[in-house]
Each structure stands twice: as C-alpha cells, then as structure tokens.
C-alpha cells in the first residue's frame, strides 16, 4: 500500500490548503469564505493522517489529532455561521466587501 509516496499526500494537502486560502481571501460571499476555511482545516487533516501513517516516526496520535481538528472545525463553522446570520440580520448582506465600516 505504500506505493503512494508521502510527498503526494503532502502536495495534495498543500494544494488543498492553498485553494482554501485562495477562496478565503478572494470570495465575496461570506459563506464561501467560511467554507474555504474549512477546506484549509481539512488540508491539515490530510497531512496529519498521512504523517501518522508514513512519517519517519509513525504514530497514532496524528489520527487522534485529526479527530479533534474535525470537531473543532465543525464548532468553528457553527460559530462563524451564527455570527454571519447576526450580521445578515443587521446588514442584509453577506458580501464580505461591504463589511468595512471600521478601518484605518
């Protein structure tokens, strides 16, 4: 099963991370921004699991770590969406560009 090298996983994770990052930094829709952040967190999960299996010192804790990450990511998404809803109620928009009343 070790035909796929670790580097491939890592590259995948890195690409996923960058896609997520790109989305989080460029998308106008706040929901998509939040989802993109989830994507970044999932990239980390891939890393963790891959490392847990293939690294120099493989260990189970990586998978445990990823379980915690998934949980936390869920909580974060929940909080993020809740805040977004509150914001939407007041501003009637989910456009990130418009959320710049405070600056300078």
């Amino acid at each position, binding site marked *: 099963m070790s035909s796929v090298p670790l580097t491939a996983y890592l590259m995948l994770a890195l690409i996923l991370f960058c896609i997520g*990052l790109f989305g*989080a*930094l*460029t998308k106008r829709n706040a929901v998509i*921004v939040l989802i993109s952040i989830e994507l970044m967190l999932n990239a980390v999960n891939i890393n963790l699991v891959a490392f847990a299996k293939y690294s120099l010192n493989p260990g189970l804790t990586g998978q445990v770590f990823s379980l915690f990450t998934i949980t936390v990511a869920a909580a974060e998404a929940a909080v993020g969406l809740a805040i977004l809803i509150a914001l939407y109620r007041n501003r009637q928009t989910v456009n*990130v*560009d418009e*959320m*710049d*009343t*405070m*600056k*300078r």
Partner: protein
Amino acid sequence: MLQMSWLIPLFPLLSFILLVVFRKSSNENTAWIGVLLTGASFVLSFGAWLAVWQGDGIKVEGTWFQLGERAITMGYEVNPLNALMLVIVSLVSLLVHLYSKGYMHGDERFSVFFAYLGLFSFAMLGLVLSPNLLQLYMFWELVGLGSFLLIGFYYFKPEAKAAAKKAFVMTRIGDVGLFIGMVLLFWQVGSFEYDEIFSAIKNGELSQSMLTLTAICIFVGAIGKSGQLPLHTWLPDAMEGPTPVSALIHAATMVAAGVYLVAAMYPLFQASETALTVVAVVGGVTAIFAASIGLMQKDIKRVLAYSTVSQLGYMMLALGASGYVAGIFHLTTHAFFKALLFLAAGSVIHAVHTQNIEEMGGLWKKLNITGPLFLIGALAISGIPLLSGFFSKDEILMSTYADGKYGLFWIAVIAAFMTAFYMFRLFFLVFTGKPRGSQKGVHESPSVMTLPMIVLGVLAVVAGYLNTPWFGTFLTDYLSQGPVELLHADHHGPVWIPFVATAVALLGIGLAYMIYQKGSVSRDWLTRTFPGLSHVIYNKWFVDEGYDRTVVKGTTGLSWLGVWFDKYVIEGLVAGVVSGVQALSRLGSEMQNGQVQSYGTFAIFGLVLLLLIAALSGGYFS
C-alpha cells in the same frame, strides 16, 4: 603707612556701596561721601608713595583658591611704579569728584554718578595694587565696567548707549588678548605672580617665540584699553559720557592702564625685541594717526579724545623704544595736563551748553579762570619748554632716537607738530575771536569746579620737574628701585632734539595762529589743497565705516547664517524625521482598509515573505 595700603581701593568701594544705597537721595551733599572717601584714598596713596620714595615696599598675598597643587593668590603690592600710579589715580579721582560736584549739579541721578565714580576708582586703584596678572585682569575688566557705566550714564541717549556698548566690546577684544597672554604665561611659568614670571624670564625658562607671543598678546590688551590702533575707535565715542568722566577715565587713568600694563610687564617685553618693536610701531603710528584726525574735528571733546589717543601712542612708542622712564614720565604729566584740558573743556561746555567749537569763540574774557588754565594745558601738551609736557615729550623723542628708531622719531616729531597745531586751533577757536553762537548767561564755573582745575594747572606746569636733564632725574632714580632694569637710564641723545621739538611746537602754534586767529591763511586751505586727503581725515580715515562693513557686517552675516542653519537645516532634519514617521503612519492606516480578506492577504504575504527570506538567506539549499 604701607601696611594700610590695602585700604586704598576699599574707600572708593565703600563710597560706591553707600551711594548706591542712598541713590535716591536728592540731597547733593552725598557728593561729599565720594569726595571724602576718595580723599582718604589719596592721603593713603600719597603716604605710600612717600614710603616707597624712601626705598620701602610691600607685598602681601594670600591664597584665593586652590587649583590642584597650585594656589591662586590675591593680595596687594606697592612698588615704585604703582605707588606713582596710585598717587596719580587717586589725585585725579579726588579732583574729578570735587569738580563733578559742580558739573553734575541738578542731575536727577546725581548720587548714582558719584557711586559709579567710586566704583571706577575702586577698580582702577585695585588694578594698580595687583601683585599678579590674574588680579590685574579682574580689575582690568572692572575698570571697563566703570567706564561702561559712566559712558552710558545718560542711558536714554541712543548715542550714549551705542558708545557704552562699543567701549565695552572693543576693550573686550583687547582683553581677550590679555587673557590669552596671561593664561599662556601661566602654563609656562606656573604662576600669575609678576615676580615669578620675571624670574622665569630671567632664568630663560621661556622660549623666545613664546616670549614674543605672550608679550604681543598682553600688548593687545593694552591696545584695547589705551585706544591704540586698530582698537581706538571706542575712545572718541566714549566722549558721550559726562565730561568729568572723560577727564578721569578717558584721559588720565583708565586709558593709561594699557601703558601701565606694558610698564608693569616690562621685563617680558624687554626679553623680546620683536615685541618691543611692535609696541613702538603701534605707538608711533597711533600717535600720528590720531593727531591727524584731531586736526579736523569740530567737537571740543573729540579733539581732546584724539589727542589722548595720540599721546597714549607717544607713551607706547617710548616704552617700545626702551624708554621706560620716558613712558611713565609722559603718563604722569599727561594725566595732569590732559585732565586739566578736559576739565577746562567741561567748564566751557558747562558754560555754553554746546560741544561744537564752531559755535564758540571769544570766551577768554567770560571764562577768565578757565581760559588761562586751558592755555596752560595746551602749552604743556604742545611741548613748550618749561612746562611739563616739554620735558616728558623730549625724553620720548630722545629715547626713540637713542634706540635707533629714526623713522618713528620723525613720525613723533611730525605728530608733535600736529599736536601743537590742533591744540591751538582749539584754543583760538574757543577763546579768541568773536562769539559764533549765542552766549547768553555764560559765566565762569563755580569754585568747586575751578579749584580742581587750578590744582591740575599747577601740576601741569611743575610735574615736568620730576625728571629733567637740568634739575635732576628724580623719577629715573625712583623708578630704578623697581623690578625693571632700565636700559637707557640716562640716554643723552643729540642736543638738537629739544630744539627741534620746541621748534615744531612753535611752528604748529604759529600756523594755528595764522589760520584761526589772524586769518592770514585761509581756513579751508588744507581742504582745498588736498581735498581727498582731508576728506579721509575728516571722516577719521573711515576706520569706523571699515569695521562696520567688514567685522560688524561679517559677524551679523554669520549670525544670520546660523539662524538660517538652525531654522532650515536642524529643524528641517527634525521635521523630516517627523514627516517620515507620519508618512509611515499614514501608510499603516492605509493598509488597514477594513477588508478582512486583505488582512489575511497581508498576513499570508508576510508569512511567505518570511519563509522566502529565510529560505534564501538561511543557507538551507546551498
């Protein structure tokens, strides 16, 4: 008597303090405080002089403060030279005090004037009593203060203000020279004491160049104080002060302090031929230069002022030509006859309320005491035989010739001619002929003013007999008790010199008589014949203007340059830094544009940059 000589300067100081306390008193009897206390000084001085005459002397010193291993001392000393000076200073001061009682009558700051006179007398007597250079320097400056205060006595007059400032600053320039010389000597000798300096010179502890340097530096101090070229311009302006002040300070005593300084430091000068030559040349040139200006001045006091400058030049010339005794001798006689001339001029001004000689004339009869006294003074200064000036001037010419300085000798002779001419120009214009201005209510001065003049008149005649080739060289014998080795103690120059001197004096008087009394020579003869030269002379050789255009303008220009530098360069740099920070601040808040995504972008950008720099500079991939 000598033990009490430390009291000599303290009496006038007491007078100063008392009069400052009573400055508001309108009672003019406060003048008596000054007169009495100065009188006490005079008595003590005279006593000291008599004691010294008998070969006595005293020097008392105590530590003033400790400078490392060296003690800086203060004290007093009476030796032949300064005992003579003490008598001259305290006597003239006493007489001027007395005279001022009449002259300053009615002035609203009457007591203040006497207070200042007391301050000056204190400083001048202190200067003379000093046993070391430092103490001399201190009193030297204080004398300048007295002079400054008295020139600026009429503080509300802009001219007086300017003159006072000019006097202080010009003399300060000289003082700095003295300061440098003094300090240099200190590091060579390790002391400010005259005695130690002289013995060090004697033992050859100083190099020749150092001797010359210090001597010239000290002479610069004398130049400033004695109004020698090129620092003479303050002295004529100083005539803005009340006339008694001119008599005391700017004729008899303070301006002679420069001569006294050179005399007191004479062994130093003797050790350097160059320095002596400098002294002689400066003196000689000043003598003829100032005399030339005196020819055309219209202000009675200014003529006398230039005459003073010229006579001081004579004294310097004498000293520079190894005529130590001659210099001191002329200092003594000059003190008397010049003080007399000034007081007489003051009496004239007191009477006619103008200083312009063109507005005077025909006062001989109205001022029947002042007139003859003025004439005595004029004859004395012109060097008419049997009067004091003749003997002292003769001696100067003699020593100059004997010293081999023939050029300077002839300059001195020409200056003597000019002296006689301008003095009698003055005399004829003021006292003879017809009144040219309103002379209503002109009357002779009160006796409190004439009495001092009479005393001085007598002295102007007899002072010459202190040292004559005919009756005995008392002064020479007296001075040779002092620390100075007299080189040309009895130089008998060619016998024709007195005759030449008398001849040029008579010639000068005669010419003045022809022009101003008889009118046989036209008054504008000189002006017409040499228009350029006379223009230059009339404008005092444009020295003031020259200074104004170079030194004054230059200094002011530098000052403006500094202000510019301060404002634009230094503060500009500061402003640059400030605006730099502000620009950074603006940049910072521009970046903070409220877009959370750009915040993230900046963060990622920063992170990537960090990684990139780390990767490139860390050497991981090399």
